[in-house]
């Protein structure tokens, strides 16, 4: 009896420990457990044995509650719509799927018929079912099972018919055919295309798992089951119902934690699917809904089996599953949304690069990630109206810098590898390791060799390790970079004065990580010490010194110490000039960096000169300039021009940049889309609304980015359409932007901006919703006295004037008039206020006042826009009606 009680008590304690252990990262569990059990080895072993079973494959007993064919199903053999129900092929939470054949018709192609389960027709389930039908109706893609028909059964249950997919889960299909990794990735790309297509249609699948990704006998990938898909339309989600239906094994962390569901939720699930497809087993579940990749199998027998299913050997499979492909999978299934691929397209791009043996973007810590974090921190400060636009613009600038860094990395990889090849690796390292070798593997190999041999010639080792570290930095592989740089410092200290320069350069980079990426202020002293050391190195230290100064600029930017940026940046530029030449690529890049920083800290006028100089340099270099460097300079100059009200000059540059990017860097879609976006934005500000609208529409057909960015494009499209006089189209575009942006909090500054835009379109089309929309905005804007309030007053005045309440309209405009009439520089808002009051004055018979205000509005618009957009044409027509002459009419001698 006592023995039994003892045993149960021991089990109870083991269970408590195992449960607590679940909350620790798998790697920490063993040590933690040893500490907790403090010498009680039996207890430790018991708890450990339990913990080992977390994440084990499903055991048959877990299926005890599920059945298959329901034998007494009245639908079998009956007719539903134009189909006869043949047999049941599956059953989900809310619906049953049958195989059915058309009763009439030529093809008699069988279909999949989904019917709501009897007794499950609660409002919630019905809504979900109808939503799936609605979602499918909007999707037409070769990799998505197509919706064919829909209706109600005899007893009133809704049904719909889908293309019947006769296939196997992607994973099983590939295993059965013993496909290699490359072929698997190619098939997987088909699934990516389907998911990316759904995302462009604002649908998130969020239940991607092997049974839902089938491959037909003909090798076509088909995506199924949008049963818990979510429309990114801001509508509230049937959370409870969908969470009941989610598949815990394949759920993203945010699905457990009730975080926002975005297109990146699907990226996560695709990552898990890819992991399973390549490694042959599900990723290890770890902690709160996260998963850890497990490519390094610990069971030789299993590994050999999986290798055989991939037509290769165990050793070759393990080798292939390291390196870039593992990084891609890890980035896709990163538990931190910010570090995951931003889109399915980005994941697919990397996979394509991997297939072509090109360097991939997946890294463990990238500059783009830093840029996003920076934007997140500074969004509040960025100002209301410009927040979304700025996010795109500044993000783009940083992304370009990153791209430039990458290209620099390629060259320095070549340099480093050239040296390595001679010194360490013998004649032909590529051949000796086989054709599948990737540069990063080689780099890792070299690093190991050099570090092991560093005592032999520490000075050379310090230099080479410094170079390899720099490559890792640029590749964004922080862990390897820090490790290598520390080895460089160690070797450098061994070498003493002979490698002082390399040691300080490595120290500066190490400090940069801690200071800028981690925000560890303690590293500032290290950076300053390294800078002092580099200054003492004289001419030879100029390039690393310039780089270290740029690190300091990064820190100043992050901490908001804007005043110290210009002198530091100037010094860096001078150093680049001295070290690489006045007209070198390096100098052009540094000038571009300087210009982008000056723009970002609100000194656009100062950005113009360096941007122009950088642009002149690449122009002179011509074909000698790499395309990336050329584009960077062109982009920075165009950006500086646009920021100084010289959009008309920027526009042709951006056109040129776009066609170059499309021709020479078409694989870099972020770059191409980013430039297309800047071009359209610039066109919209200078009145080329037709061009802007068509560019934006094209962007929307291809773009696959975060919803906030899609919202920005929709919003800009709305503005372009509105300015073209197409208020209804504008209303639709603004409504899309609002849905995307205002999901959780309709009072955020960007949301208020798009709601004001929407209200403007509503007023223009005379919609009844205009009045309630403005009332809601009035409340949400509150007492803040900024641009949103002024725009609100103008819109309210427009609405009142349209409703013949002229006095009330005047009262709204009154506080805006003085400023609008007196403004020294032409502004769109002022022109709108002036045109509005002019219209009211005209209707009240105050001809002279109306003419004066119309003319003032005309002057402002003509100064902002090129050509004659509809709004300007309307104002000129009004002036003519009132019997006045316009500036345009006065300038043109002949007329109709």
């Amino acid at each position: 009896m006592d023995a039994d009680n003892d045993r149960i008590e021991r089990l109870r304690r083991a269970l408590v420990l195992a449960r607590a252990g679940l909350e620790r990262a798998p790697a920490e569990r063993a040590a933690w457990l040893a500490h907790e059990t403090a010498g009680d080895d039996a207890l430790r072993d018991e708890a450990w044995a339990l913990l080992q079973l977390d994440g084990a494959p499903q055991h048959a007993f877990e299926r005890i509650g599920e059945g298959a064919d329901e034998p007494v199903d009245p639908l079998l053999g009956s007719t539903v719509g134009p189909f006869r129900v043949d047999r049941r092929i599956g059953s989900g939470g809310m619906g049953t799927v049958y195989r059915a054949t058309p009763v009439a018709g030529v093809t008699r192609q069988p279909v999949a018929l989904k019917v709501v389960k009897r007794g499950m027709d609660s409002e919630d389930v019905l809504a979900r079912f109808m939503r799936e039908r609605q979602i499918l109706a909007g999707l037409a893609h070769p990799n998505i099972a197509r919706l064919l028909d829909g209706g109600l059964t005899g007893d009133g249950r809704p049904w719909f018919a889908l293309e019947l997919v006769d296939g196997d889960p992607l994973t099983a299909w590939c295993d059965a055919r013993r496909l290699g990794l490359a072929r698997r990735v190619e098939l997987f790309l088909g699934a990516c295309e389907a998911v990316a297509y759904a995302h462009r249609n604002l649908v998130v699948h969020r239940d991607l798992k092997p049974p839902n990704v089938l491959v037909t006998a003909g090798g076509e990938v088909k995506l199924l089951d949008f049963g818990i898909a979510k429309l990114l339309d801001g509508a509230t989600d049937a959370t409870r119902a969908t969470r009941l239906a989610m598949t815990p094994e394949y759920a993203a962390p945010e699905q457990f934690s009730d975080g926002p569901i975005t297109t990146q939720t699907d990226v996560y699930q695709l990552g898990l699917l890819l992991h399973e497809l390549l490694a042959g087993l599900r990723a290890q579940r770890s902690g709160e809904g996260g998963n850890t990749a497990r490519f390094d199998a610990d069971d030789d027998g299993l590994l050999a089996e999986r290798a055989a299913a991939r037509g290769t050997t165990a050793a070759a499979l393990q080798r292939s599953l390291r390196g870039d492909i593992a990084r891609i999978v890890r980035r896709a299934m990163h538990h931190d949304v910010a570090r995951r691929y931003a889109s399915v397209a980005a994941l697919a791009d990397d996979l394509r690069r991997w297939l072509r043996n090109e360097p991939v973007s997946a890294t463990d810590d990238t500059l783009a990630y830093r840029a996003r974090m920076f934007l997140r921190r500074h969004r509040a400060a960025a100002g209301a109206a410009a927040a979304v636009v700025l996010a795109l613009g500044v993000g783009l600038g940083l992304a370009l810098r990153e791209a430039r860094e990458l290209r620099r990395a390629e060259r320095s990889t070549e340099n480093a590898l050239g040296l390595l090849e001679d010194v360490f690796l013998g004649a032909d390292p590529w051949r000796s390791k086989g054709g599948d070798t990737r540069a990063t593997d080689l780099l890792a190999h070299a690093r190991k060799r050099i570090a092991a041999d560093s005592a032999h010639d520490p000075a050379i080792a310090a230099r080479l390790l410094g170079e390899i570290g720099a490559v890792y930095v640029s590749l964004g592989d922080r862990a390897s970079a820090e490790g290598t740089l520390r080895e460089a410092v160690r070797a450098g200290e061994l070498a003493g004065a002979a490698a002082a320069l390399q040691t300080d350069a490595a120290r500066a980079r190490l400090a940069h990580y801690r200071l800028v990426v981690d925000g560890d202020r303690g590293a500032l002293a290290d950076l300053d010490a390294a800078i002092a050391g580099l200054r003492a190195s004289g001419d030879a230290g100029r390039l690393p010194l310039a780089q270290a100064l740029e690190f300091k600029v990064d820190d100043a930017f992050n901490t908001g110490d804007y005043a110290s940026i210009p002198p530091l940046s100037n010094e860096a530029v001078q150093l680049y000039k001295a070290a690489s030449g006045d007209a070198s690529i390096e100098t052009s890049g540094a000038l571009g960096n300087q210009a982008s920083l000056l723009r970002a800290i609100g000194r656009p006028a100062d950005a113009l000169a360096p941007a122009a100089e950088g642009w002149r340099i690449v122009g002179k270099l011509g074909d000698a300039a790499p395309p990336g460097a050329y584009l960077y300079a062109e982009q920075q100059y165009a950006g500086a021009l646009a920021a100084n009200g010289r959009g008309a000059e920027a526009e042709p540059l951006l056109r040129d940049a776009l066609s170059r990017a499309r021709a020479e860097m078409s694989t870099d879609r972020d770059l191409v889309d980013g430039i297309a976006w800047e071009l359209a934005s610039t066109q919209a500000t200078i009145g080329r609304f037709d061009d802007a609208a068509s560019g934006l529409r094209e962007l929307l057909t291809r773009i696959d980015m975060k919803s906030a960015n899609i919202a920005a494009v929709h919003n800009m499209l709305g503005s372009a359409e509105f300015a073209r006089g197409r208020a209804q189209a504008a209303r639709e575009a603004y409504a899309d932007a609002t849905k995307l942006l205002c999901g959780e909090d309709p009072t955020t500054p960007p949301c208020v901006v798009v709601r004001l835009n929407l209200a403007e379109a509503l007023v223009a089309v005379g919609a009844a919703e205009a009045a309630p929309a403005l009332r809601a905005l009035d409340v949400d804007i509150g007492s803040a006295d900024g641009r949103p309030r002024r725009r609100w007053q103008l819109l309210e005045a427009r609405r009142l004037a349209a409703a013949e309440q002229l006095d009330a309209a005047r009262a709204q405009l009154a506080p805006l008039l003085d400023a609008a009439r007196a403004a020294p520089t032409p502004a769109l808002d002022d022109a709108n206020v002036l045109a509005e009051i002019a219209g009211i004055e005209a209707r009240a018979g105050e001809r002279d006042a109306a003419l004066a205000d119309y003319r003032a509005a005309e002057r402002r618009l003509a100064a902002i826009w090129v050509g004659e957009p509809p709004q300007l044409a309307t104002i000129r027509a009004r002036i003519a009606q009132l019997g006045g002459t316009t500036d345009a009419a006065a300038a043109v001698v002949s007329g109709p």
Partner: protein
Amino acid sequence: MANGAGDTAEIEALLDGVRNGRADATDRLFALLYDDFRSQAHVLLRVGPRQTLCTTELVNETWLRLSGRTLSVESRRHFFNLAARAMRQLLIDRARVRGAGKRGEGGEALTLGAASDVAADEPFDVLALDRVMTELAATDPALAELAQMHLFGGLGFGEIAELRGVSERTVFRDWRTARMFLLRFITGTD
């Protein structure tokens, strides 16, 4: 449905009794549910081409007959708890009867549904599961109740979370804990 579990008014009255801690009400409701499941399971098993049993659907069918009324969370928890227990009992009894008929003592290999991602016809020992569940109940009754609701009552984690008034995350973590225990001992490697 024929042979339904009494009428809904009776069940509601019994649930009230259960809530007030009346043991006789618990026993009576358990018996009602057991009979109800047995009568329906009988039909399913006799008619089906393969001998399959879908306990989740049975429990849900029974619940749906009641769900026209609005019952308190507490009553629902009692209901599903009892229903899961009754279902477990039914499966065990059937296994025992079969086993005794065929080969004296020992467990029956119950054929499970041909769900796509689990090997069809993969047998397992219901009685072994029952033994491990009993062991879990002795070790941690709350975990055992959760596992029973999930496995035999067919409730999802979200539903259980609602019934227990805790977060779904907690339920999921508890389930993982219970599952480790069940996996550890169901294979007999104690």
